[in-house]
């Protein structure tokens, strides 16, 4: 059964002693890539672990491919490709052995695809996992995540540790993956440029709160940076200022294009800039 949305999160809450994820609402339509952006400790990994039911939610609901994530997760995971930053294979295993393990774990495991993937990413077949560099480990995780032909890829900091060339190659693979309209990707990363390149939707998390979640193109269309003198800030209504950077002689204001007073120079805003401005304003 094909669902309209791959992921639907409603009123998701999780509290710890020193951190809480508050009332998160997020929807990822099928066929799209969503980037989860946030500083360290913003709650990106918490969201992903809640989606995978690796930690228990306090409140809210999570639907993956139209199904509650807590109902038969082992069956649901046949359709998920998952890469988490802080997990590992046993150090003694080689990719060849991992292939055998996964062949006996996933119903749709595609051995040839896996081997081809390893070859493409230059991952040695007979080397032990513990001897791999961080980048090599990540490539192997990505190969495993994609070789059972999942419908939904969930990637937590999956491009970390990879050199720019491989990152480019991998992000292309993710884009290619979503050419099939039933496929979707949720990816969290510190490297916002990667997300900017491939994502259709961007979700900003800051201190456990979702600041915004919109289509990337819409964000770029909606927001801009206004360059002016510091004394010109007063021209802006307070609610229009989403973020600002002020020096003695210059001011840069992040605002909606529709709210820019006439006569001021504007420039387009990148996703990274947008996040930094907004997060700083909140702080």
């Amino acid at each position, binding site marked *: 059964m094909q669902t309209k949305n791959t992921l639907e999160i409603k009123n998701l809450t999780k509290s710890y002693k020193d951190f809480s994820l508050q009332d998160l609402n997020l929807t990822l339509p099928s066929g799209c890539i969503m980037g989860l952006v946030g500083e360290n400790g913003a709650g990106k990994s918490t969201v992903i672990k809640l989606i995978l039911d690796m930690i228990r939610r306090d409140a809210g609901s999570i639907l993956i491919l139209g199904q509650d994530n807590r109902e038969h997760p*082992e069956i649901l*995971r046949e359709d*998920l490709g998952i890469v988490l930053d802080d997990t*590992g294979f*046993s150090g003694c*295993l080689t990719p060849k*052995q991992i292939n055998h*393990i996964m062949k006996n774990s*996933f*119903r749709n495991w595609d051995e040839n695809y896996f081997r081809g993937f390893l070859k493409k990413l230059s991952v040695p077949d007979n080397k032990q996992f513990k001897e791999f560099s961080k980048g090599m480990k990540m490539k192997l995780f990505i190969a495993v995540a994609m070789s059972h032909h999942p419908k939904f890829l969930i990637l937590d900091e999956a491009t970390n540790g990879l050199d720019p060339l491989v990152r480019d190659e991998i992000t292309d693979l993710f884009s290619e993956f979503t050419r099939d309209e039933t496929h979707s990707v949720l990816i969290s990363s510190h490297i916002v440029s990667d997300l900017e390149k491939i994502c259709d939707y961007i979700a900003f998390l800051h201190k456990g709160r979702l600041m915004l979640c919109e289509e990337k193109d819409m964000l770029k269309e909606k927001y801009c940076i206004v360059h002016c003198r510091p004394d010109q800030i007063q021209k802006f209504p307070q609610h229009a200022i989403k973020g600002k950077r002020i020096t003695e002689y210059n001011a840069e204001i992040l605002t909606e294009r529709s709210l820019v007073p006439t006569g001021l120079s504007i420039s387009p805003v990148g996703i990274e800039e947008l996040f930094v401005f907004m997060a700083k304003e909140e702080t």
Partner: protein
Amino acid sequence: MKGLLLKDFYMIMKYCRIYLIVISILWIFTPFAEEVIFILYPCLLTAMIPINLQMYDEKERWSCYSCTLPYSSGQIVSAKYLLNLFTILLNLAIISLGQFIRMLCVSGFNLEELLVLLFSGLLISVIPTMFVLPFIFKFGAEKAQLAYMILAITIGGAFAWITIAEDGIETETAILEVLQNPTLFTAIALAGIVIIYIISWQISMKLYARKEFD
């Protein structure tokens, strides 16, 4: 669950190689040795295998990774218990064969003697697993070391109570009476072990299902 068992098999061949070598050497000596150490020591080493593997799983973050695979928490736990059962049965089968040969060569086959020996081996093989694994699945391998100590103290205390305490004389007599009837003793104790093992398995599954992987 085949994938999980295969992964454990690869790990045994790599990380438990020393155990396998020692066990194999002891197996070779079994038909020639009357000393109980040749029977009980392989059992003790066998018992340590699933505990060791679970420790490696945690250390290498496989425990966390396995949450992303199409296995239920019950299957992840069951893989360790099944592995334990398989290694115990294999070990006891080889020991039985060795003892069978020894008895035939030395004093003639004695079923009761063999049953008592096998039962002692079984006891040593399952006690560490059935008591320690639930603690490992709940608290993690590091904190479960406390369970080892509690287990050792409890067993030591029980022996001390039976052999030293004045009040224990009656109990000791009762135990000795049962021991004099090895078939009855084996049957009662075997039933007890099976029940406790199943309870341990169920507890581990419940505890692991509630575990969070932060």
